[in-house]
């Protein structure tokens, strides 16, 4: 039996009533009395709220009076108050890890409410087990590691831009990585923003310019994060700069190359509505204003080289370039993509020319879009005199996306308004299930659009047919208020497609060992109290990658993430929980099973003195125990959950 400091354990047991949460079911007095009968227990008592100040004082007093060196509190889940009691114990002069908590609330009184007798018996079992483990507890010392004073921001949309600027303004170095040739994300594609109708580019481009000029921000556009190693405070990041085939240091963005380029292809930025050349910038205000050659379409005719002349910015031989940076924290802001409307074949997207998506409409109505802001329908280029907007295309649909995409109601109301503004005599219908105008000023905007004569029909569109002659569309639905099927003949249909997590997030998610919720978006540490952090220390979330949200919410979360990401950096060092895996190198055979099961990438097998041995990176280790369970030779144990400690608990349970 291992002892700490060579002393005989003197255990104090404290049973909490938690008001009536525990005491209403469990006979707490009986449990406390029982505890006194257990070996090494020298003191036991109960109290109404152990976590309260008087409760904690009670523990401290008892430690002093009874010279206690091990503490067991039987109360709620350790998730809630383990830290509280560790601190209490520590204040009384004991090592905080000489404390054990027995959960007699969540795992007992709450689940056995109708059986107080059995619950009391189970509480005794749990206390007995805790005491058995407490006897074997060892003092542990937390470690401190220094923090690299820089932040990596992945994704250059509004979330990444906002987070980068906030951090940079605090004086922190920021590496902003964007996979597209320019930052701006999806927001820069939008025409106006609801409900204030600010021009999206007008409010975003100043921030983009700030990013490009800020001395604390290093922008890696047309680049991808390919590898992340390390842990909070010390992440090693490998960034791959994709070849633009245009030298960033020489290109002035003059555009002479694009003028002469003979290859015209659809511009992804306009969602294929308008053209670009094989050498291009996606939009005029692009940051950085550097041209990129699309090698999928370039034929290397050399006209651009000639047009570029003495600048000699074009370099067909450019290769991908690797950049390594070191950062203390990381913000993921990888955004979203649209649901592919072709998955709802009843709406005919991809088949009927005049069925477009909402994002295509944004480009159509945008003054810098391919039509100069004129709303026209694709089949004949004429302004449509009637438009139907279909909500929830993909969203709130068990056959597609079960969740609400949150933004579609509002942007569709905005689209209806924009159509009415530009084609006043157009009939605009919105087919909806519910209008969710949840934000500040949103309900008022909804009201305004109703005033403008937009017809809202409460019914989800069931199908669309195209008249092959006129290319008009017949939208079928039920007006559920009238309880009658309706058929609307319109000249254009806009599908308010839902949002999905950006597929490009997935490799990043895996590299960072962060998790996703069932909907595919990245999982936050706590949905209410910590929505901008992940379960991995030092990695934070901003914007749509965490879940559908509008611009105000995205910006707010981005600032929150920036603030959270700056804390370890401003502290300069971080404390690491000592409950980590520990390798007994004498037993380790270097088989590597531990490495393959570790969900955090904390265990690696390395050469030590000519032999392969498992190594634990204590900063990355979460103490989950997967490696310990998998180790065939019993070489790995998790401190505070050592084999003898757990076996003692099991013994205690079976011998009760």
């Amino acid at each position, binding site marked *: 039996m291992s002892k700490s400091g060579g002393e005989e354990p003197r255990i104090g047991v404290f049973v909490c009533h938690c008001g009536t949460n525990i005491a209403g079911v469990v006979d707490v007095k009986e449990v406390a009395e029982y505890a006194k009968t257990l070996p090494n227990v020298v003191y036991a008592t109960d109290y109404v709220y152990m976590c309260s100040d008087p409760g904690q004082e009670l523990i401290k007093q008892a430690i002093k009076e009874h010279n206690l060196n091990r503490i067991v509190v039987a109360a709620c889940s350790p998730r809630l108050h383990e830290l509280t009691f560790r601190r209490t114990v520590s204040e009384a002069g004991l090592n905080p890890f000489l404390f054990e908590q027995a959960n007699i609330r969540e795992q007992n009184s709450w689940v056995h409410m109708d059986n107080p007798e059995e619950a009391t018996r189970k509480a005794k079992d749990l206390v007995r087990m805790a005491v058995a483990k407490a006897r074997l507890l060892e003092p542990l010392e937390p470690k401190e590691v220094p923090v690299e004073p820089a932040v990596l921001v992945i994704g250059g949309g509004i979330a990444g831009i906002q987070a980068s600027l906030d951090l940079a303004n605090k004086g922190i170095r920021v590496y902003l990585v964007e996979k597209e040739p320019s930052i701006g994300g999806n927001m820069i594609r939008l025409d106006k923003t609801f409900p204030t109708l600010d021009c999206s580019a007008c409010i975003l481009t100043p921030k983009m310019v700030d990013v490009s000029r800020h001395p604390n921000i290093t922008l890696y556009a047309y680049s991808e994060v390919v590898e992340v190693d390390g842990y909070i405070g010390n992440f090693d990041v490998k960034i791959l700069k994709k070849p633009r085939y245009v030298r960033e240091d020489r290109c002035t963005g003059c555009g002479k190359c694009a003028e002469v380029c003979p290859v015209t292809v659809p511009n992804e930025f306009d969602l294929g509505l308008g053209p670009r050349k094989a050498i291009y910038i996606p939009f005029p205000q692009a940051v950085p204003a550097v041209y990129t050659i699309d090698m999928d379409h370039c034929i290397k005719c050399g006209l651009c080289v000639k047009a570029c002349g003495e600048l000699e910015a074009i370099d067909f031989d450019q290769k991908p370039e690797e950049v390594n940076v070191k950062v203390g924290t990381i913000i993921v802001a990888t955004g979203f993509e649209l649901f592919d409307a072709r998955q709802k*074949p*009843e709406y005919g997207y991809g*088949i009927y020319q005049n069925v477009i998506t909402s994002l295509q409409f944004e480009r159509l109505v945008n003054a810098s879009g391919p039509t100069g802001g004129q709303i026209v329908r694709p089949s004949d280029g004429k302004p449509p005199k009637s438009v139907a907007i279909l909500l929830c295309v993909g969203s709130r649909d068990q056959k597609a996306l079960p969740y609400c995409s949150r933004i579609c109601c509002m942007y569709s109301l905005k689209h209806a308004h924009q159509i009415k503004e530009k084609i006043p005599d157009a009939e605009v219908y919105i087919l909806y299930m519910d209008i969710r105008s949840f934000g500040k000023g949103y309900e008022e905007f909804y009201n305004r659009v109703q005033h403008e004569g937009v017809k809202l029909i409460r019914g989800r569109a069931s*199908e669309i047919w195209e008249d*092959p002659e006129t290319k008009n569309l017949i939208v079928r639905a039920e007006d559920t208020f009238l309880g009658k099927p309706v058929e609307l003949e319109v000249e254009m249909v806009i599908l308010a497609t839902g949002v999905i997590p950006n597929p490009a997030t997935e490799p990043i998610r895996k590299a960072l060992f962060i998790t996703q919720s069932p909907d595919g978006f990245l999982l936050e540490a706590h949905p209410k109290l910590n929505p901008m952090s992940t379960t991995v220390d030092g990695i934070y979330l901003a914007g749509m990658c965490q879940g559908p949200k509008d611009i105000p919410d995205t910006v707010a979360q981005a600032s929150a993430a920036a603030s959270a990401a700056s804390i370890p950096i401003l502290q300069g060092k971080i404390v690491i929980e000592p409950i980590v895996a520990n390798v007994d190198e004498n037993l380790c055979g270097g088989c590597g099973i531990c490495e393959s099961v570790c969900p955090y990438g904390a265990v690696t097998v390395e050469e030590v003195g000519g032999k392969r041995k498992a190594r634990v990176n204590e900063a990355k280790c979460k103490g989950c125990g997967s490696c310990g369970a998998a180790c065939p030779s019993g070489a790995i144990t998790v401190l505070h959950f050592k084999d003898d400690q757990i076996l003692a608990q099991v013994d205690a349970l079976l011998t009760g």
Partner: protein
Amino acid sequence: MPNRYPGIELATRIVMKNLGIELVDMEGASCCPAPGAFGPADLFTWRVLGARNLSIAEKKGVDVLTVCNGCYKTLYEVNQDLKSDPELRERVNEVLRPLGYEYNGTIRVRHIAEYLHRDYGVEKLRGAVKKPLEGIKVAVHYGCHLMRPKLRRELGDSERPHLLEDIIEATGAECVEYKDMMICCGAGGGVRSYDLALSLTLTHTKIKNATEAGADCMVNVCPFCHLQLDRGQAELKEQWGVYYGLPILHYSQLLGLAMGIPPKMLGFEAHYVPVDSFLEKLKGII
């Protein structure tokens, strides 16, 4: 096998024989029974009788092939239900065992269209066509229960499928798109016998739209749809005074023509809408 249109039975037997596929009769089989017209009377009885039919095929160790969407729905779904629910299977077998039958879930149920498309193969089918029906415009009628509900089938999308188009185009004919192509013939779910006039409204929509799209004929894969679309036109003439005269062919009959089987062996006599003018059109080909 369809009782009303023996021509479909004959055409299927000949066509399959020519394709080298052996058909085994299920002696003593009963009505599938009809999913829409019989099912609601008692879903358990519907499953018992369906299982009885399946057990006949099981005993012979062969999969079931249907030429009818209704039979397909009943037998496919009963097979699926009983395979996945051992308790239900036991209750069904409790009724069947004393009668000398037992369902064990050992076979598959396939529709002839599915079989020709997936198992036999479109390319091979094209190879079997001796008289490509070039220049013939076909309006495709899927019928509902072949593809729907898609969650209970493995045939893919039911909004814009191309299963039938593929095997029809293998005969050399061209498929024309027409409005409301995927809607019901009107007969299903017992509606034909419950309210004939109501069922004919959908029939009218289909026939009218197909005719306006320039179809020379409409091809189906279900004798019940076949009845509604064929006899329904005679009924529309009688009740509404409108007549389109659009010839209705079961796929087996169309394939038979393309394989060079003489029309008189394909049993067009039982049709209400004469196919003479259609056959006239094919004169240069067959």
